[in-house]
């Protein structure tokens, strides 16, 4: 197995540019995830790497093999890049075993049977080799598709939203299983999804994609706590974007002065990220500091409460804040005292930039 390097990749559908100077590196044996809204070009990226769609320019390299340099390209069947599409695309006319064995050399019967058995074991479908795809459940079909893709030991495996067609409970189980199976097989893999939970649960590395480029790439933890800009912050989960005066290592906000995480930020007016878990609610009558805000509404989610809050317009805070609390929040309309804990993360971009502001593309290299 070896890693993938994509350099300044451009690709088009007809006349519209879908990939626009995309750079991406996935290390050997890593499980990476490309996260982005539908239409951002993530499926096209997979199709270019798999060899189903030509690159207009740029290079795609696996290990030391150049697969596509915009002029010449290796045919899909010679790439040793596995592909698992959304619906699995099992061959309906073949049994499970024949599906899994499809990519194995046909001459070596014994080795083939052995590898198929090994794969059936890996995905937990021992004994189902003689079934036909339509006799399997949706989750089983996806497992067969995974086994089929892994059987010829591809150097790289591409997964195009493979869990999105399944129902919620099965989806969570299966992505854990698939991640485990991939790690066991030592595969380098790229999962494409628009589902944050899936990305966070699955990947060692996440690349947030938008507008045909990678906006930021890093570990799930890095992206969640130290996103490069507001949009990346929001892509990874709910975010409170709070205006702040930055002063090297601290940020003064309407919620008090907070330490800044990470490297020292530039001085001046800016914006910090506070995740909903970082906001604390306290009763008004409790002594202590904290800004008075109103509860707008709350939802009980089983493990916690999601509370929507609104601050006075002159407080300088955005008009909606979101906090997650373990204790039951006061009724809508009542006032609470709001404080923030933990280090804040300064976002690049000017102060007061809201979610609706135009996307600022951050040079991808700035994320490391």
């Amino acid at each position, binding site marked *: 197995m070896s890693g993938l390097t994509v350099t300044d990749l451009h690709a088009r559908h007809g006349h519209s540019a879908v990939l626009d100077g995309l750079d991406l590196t996935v290390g050997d044996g*890593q499980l990476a995830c490309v996260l982005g809204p539908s239409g951002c070009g993530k499926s096209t990226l997979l199709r270019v790497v798999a060899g189903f769609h030509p690159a207009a320019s740029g290079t795609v390299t696996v290990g030391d093999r150049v697969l596509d340099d915009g002029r010449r390209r290796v045919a899909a*069947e010679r790439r040793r890049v596995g592909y698992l599409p959304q619906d699995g695309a099992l061959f309906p006319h073949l049994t499970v075993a024949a599906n899994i064995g499809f990519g194995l050399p046909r001459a070596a019967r014994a080795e083939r049977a052995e590898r198929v058995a090994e794969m059936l074991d890996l995905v937990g479908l021992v004994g189902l080799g003689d079934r036909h795809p339509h006799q399997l459940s949706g989750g089983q079909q996806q497992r067969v598709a995974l086994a089929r893709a892994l059987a010829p030991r591809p150097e790289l495996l591409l997964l195009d939203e493979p869990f999105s067609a399944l129902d919620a409970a099965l989806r969570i189980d299966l992505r854990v299983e698939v991640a485990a199976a991939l790690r066991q097989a030592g595969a380098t893999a790229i999962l494409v999804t628009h589902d944050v939970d899936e990305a966070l649960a699955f990947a060692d590395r996440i690349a947030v994609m938008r507008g045909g480029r990678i906006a930021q790439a890093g570990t799930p933890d890095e992206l969640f706590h130290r996103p490069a800009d507001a949009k990346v912050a929001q892509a990874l989960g709910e975010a409170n974007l709070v205006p702040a005066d930055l002063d090297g290592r601290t940020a003064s906000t309407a919620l008090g002065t907070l330490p800044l995480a990470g490297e020292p930020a530039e001085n001046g007016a800016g914006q910090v990220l506070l995740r909903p878990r970082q906001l604390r609610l306290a009763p008004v009558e409790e002594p202590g500091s904290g800004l008075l805000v109103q509860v707008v509404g709350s939802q009980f989610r089983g493990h916690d409460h999601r509370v929507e809050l609104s601050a006075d317009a002159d407080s300088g805070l955005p008009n909606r804040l979101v906090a997650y609390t373990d204790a039951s929040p006061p009724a809508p309309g009542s006032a609470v005292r709001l404080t923030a804990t933990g280090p804040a993360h300064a976002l690049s971009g000017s102060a007061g930039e809201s979610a609706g502001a135009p996307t600022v593309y951050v040079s991808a290299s700035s994320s490391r």
Partner: protein
Amino acid sequence: MSTTRSTRPPRTLVHPGPSPLSQRWRAGRVLPLVAGLVALVTACPLLFVALEATQSGWDSAERLLGRPLIVTLLWHTVSLAAVVGLATLVLGFGAAWLIERTDLPAKRTWTVLAAMPLAVPEFVHGYCWVSLFPTVQGFWGAALVMTSSLYPLVFLPVAAVLRRSDASTEEVARSLGHGRAAVLWRVTLPQARPALAGGALLVTLYLLGEYGAFAMLRYTTFATAIYTQFETAFDTASASLLALVLVALALLVLLLEGRTARRGGRVVREGSTARPGRPLPLGGWTRPALAAMAALVGTALGVPVYALGYWLVRGSSTTLPSASIWALTATTLGYALTAAAVATAAAVPVALYAWRRDTRLARALERTAYLTRALPGIAVALAVVFFAIRYAQPLYQQPPLLVVGYAVLFFPLALTAVRSSLAQVPHGVEDVARSLGTAPLSVLRRVTLPLILPGLGAAFAMVALTASTELTATLLLAPTGTDTLATQFWTYTTGLAWGAAAPYAAVMTALSVPAVLLLTRRTLGGTRIPREATR
């Protein structure tokens, strides 16, 4: 994962296998080429008819087109198309609505019976009526015979739409305070409009192209006039001029259909998500409804079956060398099967290309190929004759020409069947197969072709069975001295040897029954449980 913009491009291209980086999908270029070639061949008839017509020169063209004959032909054709079109719409929709939307007893039987008149070729329909009732002829005779033989072309697509469409729109209309009649008029009928328009188009195209039935009913249309000009007056220029007018008429009809169909609403939900509604209880109307269905089927199917039985029994007294009918059946099937193989093989690249690439070129190729469907059979046959006479003299009146004629004529049938079976192939299987290290041709052999095998079979069967009952093109293209079931039948009926003709008509009808069953099942979805339902 790090993203680096500054990575320098690798200096050498290291190759994985014996073959280096492929030069821009070499295999990807063959398919559009072959598909384009096929589309070109199927578009040729139009070209040749136009070419031949220009040979006659403007003077004679003006003379011919200015004659009252043209006006008569136009009036005959248009008035008949109007009457038959309206009658088939009413009968086809009525039967489909009764079967799909009410609690009419024995629906499955009625479905098959209502579609079955298609198994009797139009000229055999004509024979059956004329041989039993010599007064059936002229305009009203033609209207009666053509309506009873062609209404299934409306019935089948409308029944399919009614079966697949979601009943909830009709229920919502009821809940909004509309009565049953209003729902039928304002919801059901508009939903079925594209199917009605498509059915009417087919009826009109069949009418324009039909020769045998009209000749038998002594009703002059473009097709009979063309045939007369060509076969008896040997006036190819006039024949092709008339054919050109006929083709123009057909294209006009096609254009009209396109407009009507587009105005109709699309069915929002169909297939597996559609939920059938509760059938409308007929109550006291059950008997009248059954009587109406019986009258329809009795006229359209009962009369031909009775006539064939009658003449088979009566005709057995006349001496008939029984060996000849089997020999002719063998000859007919030989041609039909060869043509079916050619048409199916030609349909595969066009269908594959259109399925894989949804580009403008692919769509244009497919549409060109479908255009032949609009060309009246006699025009296609004439075009093939002209082509042979001008450019392939040695082929004229040779077996390959008849095969080519059939293949061009019935190519759209094959294309439809292959295309609809490709639509069932799960998306992405070809991509996955390639990512597993399989070369394009192997993907075709190991994945795509096995998956569309039923469609190829259907295409083959439809073409073979339709070609084995073809009359017009066969009369024009059959090698000298070669007879098929249809031409032998024709020889007997033109000599008024009703009894001698009956066995040939019976064999042709029997050959068509499987085709009609196949068509019915394919149009209405049959009884097979969709694959999704078993998941």
